[in-house]
């Protein structure tokens, strides 16, 4: 494929990263939980695409495996688990928010700018074709973190946590062409377990408080 020069390749990786960031904003703006899960599945699919692209462009074989795992774990298994949780708990919408949607979007915009400012000096040193994605990866991590703070339902927080993980994965791919395979396998396993545990914890929360609002946990304070 002679038309796929490194320059065009880098553009494509940037495009994939940008799509990831876009889904992030969509998640922040979305009130319906099932839609959030769908968006997360979509984001993971974009992540897998970007990773495949990087693997293809650089010839780093093990990223293919990581990409395949991303599809299986993050696009299929975890969303499935989350949908079951939502179904069982019968919560469909995020009603109360710590920060409302317009303000959240503005803050996320500011976070993206911050991420770009922070990574500016690092990017200019890099020689990788993925280097521009680093800023986006950091932005995704920050947005994920912010979403955990801004949303009250445990399900949304779990999604935000997974979004952070996606950001980290993108960051690893962007900065070093992926972590060693054994580390990535470990991370996937961790994420899966974390999602399962958080699912159980959400159920317990529902049982205890008749709600999955994590701010209710402050009642446990001494």
């Amino acid at each position: 494929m002679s038309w796929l020069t490194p320059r065009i390749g880098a553009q494509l990786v940037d495009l994939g990263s940008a799509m990831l960031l876009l889904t992030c904003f969509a998640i922040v703006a979305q009130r319906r939980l099932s839609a959030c899960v769908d968006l997360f599945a979509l984001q993971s699919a974009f992540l897998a695409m970007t990773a495949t692209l990087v693997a293809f462009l650089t010839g780093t074989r093990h990223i293919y495996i990581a990409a395949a795992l991303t599809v299986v774990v993050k696009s299929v298994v975890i969303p499935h688990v989350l949908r079951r949780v939502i179904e069982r708990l019968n919560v469909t919408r995020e009603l109360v928010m710590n920060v409302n949607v317009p303000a959240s979007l503005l803050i996320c915009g500011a976070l993206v700018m911050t991420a770009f400012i922070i990574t500016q000096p690092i990017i200019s040193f890099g020689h990788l074709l993925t280097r521009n994605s680093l800023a986006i990866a950091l932005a995704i991590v920050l947005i994920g973190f912010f979403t955990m703070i801004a949303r009250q339902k445990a399900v949304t927080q779990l999604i935000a946590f997974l979004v952070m993980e996606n950001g980290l994965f993108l960051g690893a791919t962007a900065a070093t062409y992926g972590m060693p395979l054994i580390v990535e396998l470990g991370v996937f396993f961790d994420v899966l377990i974390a999602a399962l545990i958080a699912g159980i914890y959400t159920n317990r929360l529902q049982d205890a408080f008749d709600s999955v609002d994590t701010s209710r946990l402050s009642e446990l304070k001494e």
Partner: protein
Amino acid sequence: MAIFLTVMLAVYAAGIVLPLTIPVRPTLQNLLANSLAGVAATLGIVLGATGVVAPDPLTLTWSSSIPLLAFAVRLDALASFFLLTISLVGLAAAIYAVGYLRHLPSRVSPAALGALFNAFLCAMTLVVIADNGFLFLIAWELMSLISYLLVVTDHEDPDVRYAGFLYLIMAHIGTAFIVVMFLLLFQQGNTFSFEAFRHPERVLPTSLQTVVFLAALIGFGTKAGIVPLHVWLPYAHPAAPSHISALMSGVMIKTAIYGILRVSFDFLGGQFPWWWGFLVLVIGAVSAVLGVMYALMEHDLKRLLAYHSVENIGIILLGLGAGMLFHAYGLEDLVALGLLASLYHTVNHALFKALLFLGAGALLSATRTRNMEEYGGLLRRMPWTGACFLVGAVSISALPPTNGFVSEWLVFQTLFQSGQVPSLLMKLMLPLAAAMLALTGALALVCFAKAFGISFLALPRSSHARHAEEVSWTMRIGMIILAATCVLLGLAPMVVVPLLDHVIQPMTGRSIAGQMLALGGWTLIPVDAEFSSLSSPVLAMLIAGSAMMALALTALAGGWREKRYARTWGCGLNLSPRMEYTATAFVQPIKRVFGTIYQPTLKLETELMHESQYFAKSRRFTVRIEPIFETYLYLPVAAIMPALADRLRVIQAGSLHVYLAYIFVTLVLLLLIAL
């Protein structure tokens, strides 16, 4: 030498492990633990004595896999001197403990106590021989923690728990400062090796050296019990079993003196401004006076002794501070004199304070109380303990012919050399310090006249005292060893001074033993024969001679042979212990004179009969001394802490989101700062 050292440490290790492996045989556990400690201490004495006179220090190094930590030990003259002191007291305490432990309540396991005893001695030994900052800190912390465990031996008593808690807090505050000191020294060459501290690649700027010195003074001062960091001492020392109190008060606080000497004269190379020495001098004077003043008001024998440790640390620091001050003015001979006096007092205090604590332990085990007001007339029932205690009391009151007299006299001589100092201020301050020391000596004499008189003379004040019996032989031997060394060190300065000269020579570069000892060592001349001289053997002979003379005269007058027994004048009443002078009454005049410092409060509570106001049902009379530093320094600080914590609780909202937000904000800020 290296073999001796290894064997000594191995015997201590065996002393820690073996007693614990013996199943329930308290007597055997006790005997084994203490005999191993005794063997190790004997080896320590040999090692210390040879180390003091050895021309070159013994160094041993085992590297370790932990970065910056090397098991480096160095036995130079200074370390050997302290090793000798620790081992000497350790040996006496080990022998004493064999008998003493039998009197302890059965719930205290002799195996655990013996193991801790060995570990405590071993940790103190490691502190003085460590040649690596890291190893030193480990040994130092072990020493603090093990002594804490020993302090809370009797942990069922809430007072003991409080004492232990206070001790633990103060010990850790002190260690924090020592850590700061080592970290600053670490910057000199990125290593914790003492060798690198001694010969730094790059010398710290003067301001940082000041911080190092002050950190050392506070850090080690907390352990030494200088005023106002002494608050833990009167609680912790009495709470421990007596042979442990003897070690804590006699030698553990001396490791702090070792630390101060090591840092100021070894690491900082003795290059310091005059005010460092002045500061030490002031701290010494204040500690000496306040220590003895609070001791006077105590009627708990072990607390009284603990306060005397504050006093004696003050005297040691007076010699040291004067030495440092002279150093700043380049009077090297006087520096050597000051250090010599201070080290002499260090070993003396270790001996007589350990002796007195062992004596107090003997009284405690015979009468089951530490309250002096319940003693009385014990000399007739416990003559050996009484004699040994008397030797200790004479020593600590700095009376000839004992060791305390010689060293305190030397400190005086050092302080009197103010004439040679060029600074006018110091010309005034040094004699003032000498005056404070004189006051201290006088008050100490009153205090021990009280302690000995009330405890041992007259009639028993309680049934405990009436039924007291002399303690077991091992306990007596432990005390006799120390009493004998107290007298020996007093009679033979000609042996001690050259030994101490070896110790201070590397620090000051001067040897003064030759010029100090005249007439074949029979006379001690600190500076100048015109100024002052002392011959303690002759003095002892004079005292003995005049006593003989008095006896002879009495005999001649016939009073010796003819004995008449008659009732003491008792105003027609039968003599009872209630007529005796009490300890409280004994010190009442002094309490009046120093009322400003003591701030005594008298309280008389009377509960009247219901029916009539003219008949009292009960009366309660309490006398209280205001502990100034606790009331005005520590309690306010302690009160501020909960208030601060209350304020800080606002940020602990209990909400997951808020906690996440803290982390998030911190993360973003750090990222932006790192930019």
